[in-house]
């Protein structure tokens, strides 16, 4: 079977066993993102302190891409400042939405390695939203001040 590059081993592994599922112990903010087209739903639970995001957990009901994207987002933004996390959200979304080929972007995007697993989505545009949904929800969660 042709499983296609979209289902990178890290995506399949994280979708089967998310490492950041649940709710943050000292939750300070939460947000939800839904995709009305497929019913996917991402619930984020966030512990934000003055110096940045201390903890981020999620409860995700969705496809493999959506669950893995949420889990890898949690891993990537923990420990970052709010501004940093929002900048990363912007770059990730721009990377997927840009018309440049995946090959051109590999070096330019400067994204953490794990997030580059989603680059093949650029040729599966109908699935883009599966990966960007948690990042949109994160933007909502961090909007509070």
């Amino acid at each position: 079977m042709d499983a296609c590059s979209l289902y990178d081993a890290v995506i399949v592994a994280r979708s089967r066993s998310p490492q950041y599922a649940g709710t943050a112990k000292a939750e300070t903010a939460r947000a939800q993102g839904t995709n009305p087209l497929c019913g996917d739903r991402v619930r984020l639970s966030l512990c934000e302190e003055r110096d940045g995001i201390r903890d981020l957990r999620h409860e995700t009901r969705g496809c493999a891409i959506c669950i893995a994207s949420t889990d890898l987002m949690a891993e990537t933004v923990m420990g970052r400042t709010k501004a940093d996390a929002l900048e990363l959200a912007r770059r990730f979304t721009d990377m997927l939405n840009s018309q440049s080929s995946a090959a051109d972007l590999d070096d330019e995007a400067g994204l953490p390695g794990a997030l580059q697993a989603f680059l093949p989505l650029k040729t599966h545009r109908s699935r883009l939203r599966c990966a960007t949904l948690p990042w949109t929800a994160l933007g909502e969660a961090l909007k509070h001040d």
Partner: protein
Amino acid sequence: MSISETDSLSHADLSHLRGQFPILSQTVHGKPLIFLDSAASAQKPDVVIDGMAEMMRSQYANIHRGLHWMSERSTEAYEAARSRVAEFLGAGSREEIIFTHNSTEAINLVAYSYGSLIRPGQAVLISEMEHHANLVPWQMLRDRAGIDLRVAPISDDGDLDLDAYSALLSDGKVALVAITHMSNVLGTVTPAARLVEMAHSAGAKILLDGSQAVVHRRVNVRELDADFYTFTGHKLYGPTGIGVLYGRRELLEAMPPFMGGGDMISSVTFEKSTWAPVPAKFEAGTPAIVEAVGLGIAIDWMESVGFDMIEAHEAALTKHALRVLPDVPGLSIVGKPKDRGGVVSFTMDDVHPHDIATLLDRNGIAVRAGHHCAEPLMRRLGLTATARASFAVYTTEHEIDVLAATLRRIRQFFV
């Protein structure tokens, strides 16, 4: 085409028939295309593609208003398509056929126009398994006109609950029933003649959404005694942009126009306009001329294959699918209606329908995944999404076998 007079398609017949659909010889991601998404939109045979192109090449102009040869030929072809549709549906007269852009527009036409005759306190009755196209227009009418919107439940198997349907009709307040003739998710073929009879006994008119049903079975609106019947061309091996509303003549005549514009008027002054007789009253502006002709050609093509043949072939495919798909580990078929057309929705343990669809696509297999424009039905079934394989006259048992084998490998990949 000519097909032997048997009750199902032989291998040679099917191969000949498939040869008339140029898209079926395409490859996708290097694999032969297996198109199992015909319930969303069917592929087109050469005669439709060529017939529409030929019209634009040789006999095309605007209709009804030109005093020249080309306009007359174009008008003849458009009106011949109307006659063809009337004959196809068994309508009492060709004036009972209104061309719209799709089934959604046909339902909106009735909701707007017939809906304006429904008074506050009266109700419209739909079912739990409606496509959004036969739900949202009625919600909009409810909110606009202060009427009641009632919903007839279905059983866990996906059949309409006829006792509940009867109870919802019993107070005599339902002015109109609007119900599917075949579910696009469950494949349930509803007992249309009985639903019509029960609606009429309760003093209600009835609209049947035939978008799926008309593709698979012969429909006769007079035998059904339906008041309104809608379908769309692109699911019927015809082009997009053309749909049909059948309406009983006396109802259409009593209804106000849906849209205003050219062609739907009798006379216009700045003070007042008067309406053209049906069907023109409901066809404002330049219609989808070439598409209507394409629909007529598609109907001719279906009749040449024969509805007995189509029905027998698709019943065999559905039976085959219901035999081989449940053998795929973790796969559950959604619904178990008493009478099912060629639509099979399914879920697979631990594999989201969108992942199923993407991985099938990588292997050349096109299916639909999602809520299929029937969110309330999904909630009723306790699901957020399903994958759906739908069959057409060109589908083969071998394609269903390849689907099942690929689903097995997809599950192994994820679980």
